[in-house]
């Protein structure tokens, strides 16, 4: 039986009504949050101290001013010639029914030169593992122990995306400015996930550090941004509550606040991200403190994360303008990230084909597994 939409539809109005109730206080909360933001802007450093003291020991993420006025809104600068590079990934986790434990990470890689030399690149790069020591992609620290773990594969995929962007940025920076884009957060957050073996996390932390170091070493012509569309983060709202505006709480997300602060195409001030988890992950990368700003693209409030070393005015200005240009003809989402996603995605058909290929190759090597009942039942689908 498929989803019974007649039953689904009659339940939806209730859900929507309950949501409306929950956001009824948003207007007053937004006004309170705006007042608090302007008050913070009057003395950002004093505000930072007050917020940090109030948030000490809490688990909630919060934000501190990184030098720009917290209530500021910045217009985009003019476009320049640059190359936009991006990577996105998709993966197949090991299937416990498979005769041989095996995973796939497929990374879509894009380089699009705008007014600069170099050929456009749209390419996908699949890696099948465990690759064994000395794997071509990973060197000697391939996290083969991650094979049985879905979380380990997700973390590996995040790291490989970052490595791909670092590789692309390094290879294109000789032609001029590079805008390097990632989808999601700057750091692979599963680096502190306890369900992933420590040895695997250590290996992937080292690879992450090397990729970030490589991006930094590429010099001031590289702008780096990790893009989160329709962000639900609440770091700034949490800071405002700590600053003395508890009535800001119903806002829920920073995006609701910055929708009032930012005009279309404007970016917010740059903030430093703070939280217990940020601290745990960030302390592994002392040279790459996470900052972020919000960017309004039409109705979308995107959060853009970047390392502190990339938060220089010229780099941020290029990143700001490039993101707007990229999103202009791509439904409000950066073109390079969209194409990287298209290249990376592994369809359900691809997944089935991979499972059969793995079975066939395993059988040729003498590894066969009797299909488990559930698996056999799913494949036959008879009445």
């Amino acid at each position, binding site marked *: 039986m498929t989803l019974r939409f007649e039953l689904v539809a009659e339940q939806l109005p209730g859900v929507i009504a309950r949501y409306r109730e929950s956001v009824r206080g948003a207007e007053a909360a937004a006004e309170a949050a705006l007042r608090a933001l302007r008050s913070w802007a009057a003395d950002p450093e004093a505000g930072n101290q007050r917020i940090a003291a109030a948030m000490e020991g809490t688990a909630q993420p919060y934000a501190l001013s990184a030098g720009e006025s917290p209530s500021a809104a910045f217009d985009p600068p003019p476009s320049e010639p640059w190359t936009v590079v991006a990577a996105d990934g998709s993966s197949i986790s090991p299937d416990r029914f498979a005769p041989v434990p095996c995973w796939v990470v497929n990374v879509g890689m*894009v380089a*699009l030169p*705008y007014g600069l030399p170099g050929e*456009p690149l*749209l390419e996908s790069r699949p890696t099948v593992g465990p690759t064994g020591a000395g794997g071509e992609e990973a060197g000697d620290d391939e996290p083969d122990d991650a094979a049985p773990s879905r979380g380990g594969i997700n973390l590996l995929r995040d790291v490989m995306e970052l490595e791909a962007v670092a590789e692309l940025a390094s290879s294109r920076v000789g032609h001029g400015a590079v805008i390097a884009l990632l989808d999601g957060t700057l750091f692979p957050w599963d680096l502190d996930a306890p369900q992933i073996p420590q040895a695997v996390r250590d290996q992937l932390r080292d690879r992450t550090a090397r990729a970030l170091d490589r991006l930094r070493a590429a010099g001031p012509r590289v702008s780096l941004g990790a893009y989160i569309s329709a962000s639900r983060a609440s770091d700034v709202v949490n800071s405002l509550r700590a600053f003395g505006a508890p009535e800001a709480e119903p806002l829920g997300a920073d995006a609701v606040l910055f929708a009032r602060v930012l005009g279309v195409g404007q970016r917010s001030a740059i903030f430093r991200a703070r939280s217990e988890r940020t601290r745990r992950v960030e302390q592994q990368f002392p040279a790459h403190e996470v900052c972020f700003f919000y960017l309004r693209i039409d109705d979308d409030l995107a959060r853009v994360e970047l390392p502190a070393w990339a938060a220089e005015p010229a780099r941020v200005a290029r990143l700001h303008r490039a993101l707007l240009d990229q999103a202009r003809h791509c439904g409000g989402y950066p*073109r390079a990230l969209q*194409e990287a996603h*298209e290249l990376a995605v592994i369809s359900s058909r691809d997944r089935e084909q991979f499972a059969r290929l793995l079975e066939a190759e395993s059988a040729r090597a003498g590894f066969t597994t009797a299909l488990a009942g559930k698996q056999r039942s799913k494949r036959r689908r008879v009445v």
Partner: protein
Amino acid sequence: MTAFEEPEPLRIVAASLRAFDCSYPRYVENPPPLGAILAVREGPCVVFGVVVNVESGPEDPTRPLQPLGEPGQSAADVMRAHPHIRQLLRTRVRVVACGHATDGGPVPLLPPLPPPLLARVEPATPEETRALTAGGRFLPLLLAASECDDAVIGAAIRTARATFGDDGRSFLVEAGKELARLLRAEPARLTTILRMAV
């Protein structure tokens, strides 16, 4: 660069005895034109064919091309402003077989086997074209192919004539005689093709 002045080769992506489909790995502006005579030099024999259609469009049919571009921008301007587009498009060429060559010169007969998939497709040389088309010998296969309408046959005759240099008029007279023989029951069609061939 290939003979079509494109940096990447045209390759066969589907093939039968009577026709084959070719594709570039991206969008190109200078593919072989209608009526061009092509050769595939891989496999057990050289296969010759005539271009009956050229089309360009998205590789993924679920992602149609949007009419991007500002007023006043040319297609080249738009391509420069959106460098991803060319990579996501494909130019495809449909070719009808009109002869093959094994040990000797070209003969206007169907090949014994289709050309190999992914084989490179190149223009036939002027010598090959003259040998294949002299006396209008290649016309029966083309007239028998449902995909070869009058415009294709007229274009193929013009292509062949250009390789004969000063003897082009003689070639045209002989091809016209062969057409008259083949189309004696269709005088109106004969007239149409002859008008398109000169």
